[in-house]
């Protein structure tokens, strides 16, 4: 039942934007003020969060190793699972950031008749995760055609690559990623609904981003393919360019569905730095991934160790010589005469 509240919040956000733009006539609020505020919150919140993490000391060398570490030359070692050099760490990080490598090893534990305990690798989470994240990346890059003037060649090329253009029925032409992102999101949501252990640990803040993204994607798809009336894309580009050049102009008569889409995106941006979505920056700052497993080669000093000065016996005796002689303790050097 933990999904009821986040679902209600997303629906409420959509309704607020619809009522605000269609009935109350608050287009300038939803079209100009809210996007600016959301972008400000996103950028400043993101930087604050990363700098907050950067200020936290890591007391120990704590890379997670899941393979044979560096030992004797004849022992075959696992360079990616127990990296010892910066290059190997970079390789591990690259595969983690771009291919979500650790999800590849997501295992499912089960007891088979016998009884035999078995660990089976389940890659559905990895598959739908990849599907969602790369579709999201392409969708965001495609949207740059509405934000950049002139449109760079790369963006328009991406746009044509992503689109299935049907010659005879142009109205059925669609973007591949529009379908894939929805498929990925629905599968990730279904995973939280159907797998009992996952459902048990799912919280409201796990469901909220999923519902919010589904809301954004479905409002975008609705706007592009179904409720086209009043969605003048040239006017929308005018609004976007006005926002980016800090001379906002609000074209009249943009349909409420556009403001719903924009408000949900603004909500996502504003919510981003304060949520689990910060794994976008956090993946780079995970000590268990970005540290080298070289604690037996290089000394790692805890950054909060107190600064203890060495205190030799000679300096100790210099400090207490008079007292030591008085107490009859033998000393190496007598008190200076006179």
């Amino acid at each position, binding site marked *: 039942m933990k999904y009821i509240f986040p679902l209600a919040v997303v629906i409420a956000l959509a309704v607020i934007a619809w009522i605000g733009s269609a009935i109350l006539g608050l287009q300038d609020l939803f079209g100009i003020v809210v996007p600016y505020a959301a972008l400000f919150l996103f950028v400043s919140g993101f930087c604050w969060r990363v700098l907050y993490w950067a200020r936290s000391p890591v007391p120990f060398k704590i890379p997670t190793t899941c393979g044979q570490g560096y030992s004797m030359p004849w022992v075959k070692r696992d360079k990616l699972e127990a990296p010892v050099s910066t290059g190997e760490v970079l390789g591990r990080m690259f595969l983690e950031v771009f291919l979500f490598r650790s999800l590849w090893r997501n295992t499912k534990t089960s007891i088979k008749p016998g009884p035999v305990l078995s660990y089976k690798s389940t890659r559905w989470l990895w598959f739908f995760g990849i599907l969602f994240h790369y579709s999201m990346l392409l969708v965001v890059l495609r949207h740059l055609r509405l934000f950049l003037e002139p449109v760079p060649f790369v963006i328009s090329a991406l746009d044509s690559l992503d689109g299935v253009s049907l010659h005879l029925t*142009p109205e059925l032409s669609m973007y591949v990623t529009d379908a894939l992102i929805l498929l990925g999101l629905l599968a990730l949501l279904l995973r939280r609904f159907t797998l009992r252990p996952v459902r048990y640990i799912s919280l409201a803040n796990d469901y909220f981003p999923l519902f919010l993204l589904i809301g954004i994607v479905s409002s975008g798809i609705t706007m592009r393919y179904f409720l086209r009336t009043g969605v003048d894309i*040239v006017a929308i*580009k005018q609004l976007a360019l006005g926002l980016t050049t800090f001379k906002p102009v609000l074209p009249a008569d943009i349909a409420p569905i556009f403001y719903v889409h924009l408000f949900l995106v603004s909500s996502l941006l504003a919510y981003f730095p304060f949520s689990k979505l910060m794994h976008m920056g956090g993946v780079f700052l995970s000590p268990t991934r970005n540290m080298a497993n070289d604690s037996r080669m290089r000394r790692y000093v805890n950054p909060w160790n107190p600064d203890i000065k060495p205190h030799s016996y000679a300096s100790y005796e210099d400090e207490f010589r008079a007292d030591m002689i008085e107490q009859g303790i033998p000393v190496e050097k007598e008190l200076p005469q006179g």
Partner: protein
Amino acid sequence: MYDSGKIIPGLLIFVLLITLPIWYNNLSNAGQVKTPEPPDKGMLMGFTFANGQEHPSAAEMRAKHMEHLKIFHANAVAKLAEQKDKKMPTMSCMMCHGSKEQFCDSCHATISEKKVPDCWECHQKP
């Protein structure tokens, strides 16, 4: 702060990427945003086609011009099949709406809309 030599440049690159539209647009055209001129309102008001059908409103044309063009095209093809002399009909949109550059490309280029059917592979550009 720890590892500031790596974190600060990384964060800086991220912020530059996120704010790409802001500095790109301000550098590329110094805030001068070119928008296509809206079609002449007088042209659309109360215009009726030869068959007595009224011209749809500008908003509807912007949203659904492809659907209208498709119906238009299908009708024209059907009419051509019935015709005895097989004389190609001329595209009537362009009779009022000027050139392809002004009437099609101005919007399609602005938003870099690539999903256009290949009208101009058969029809001559006016």
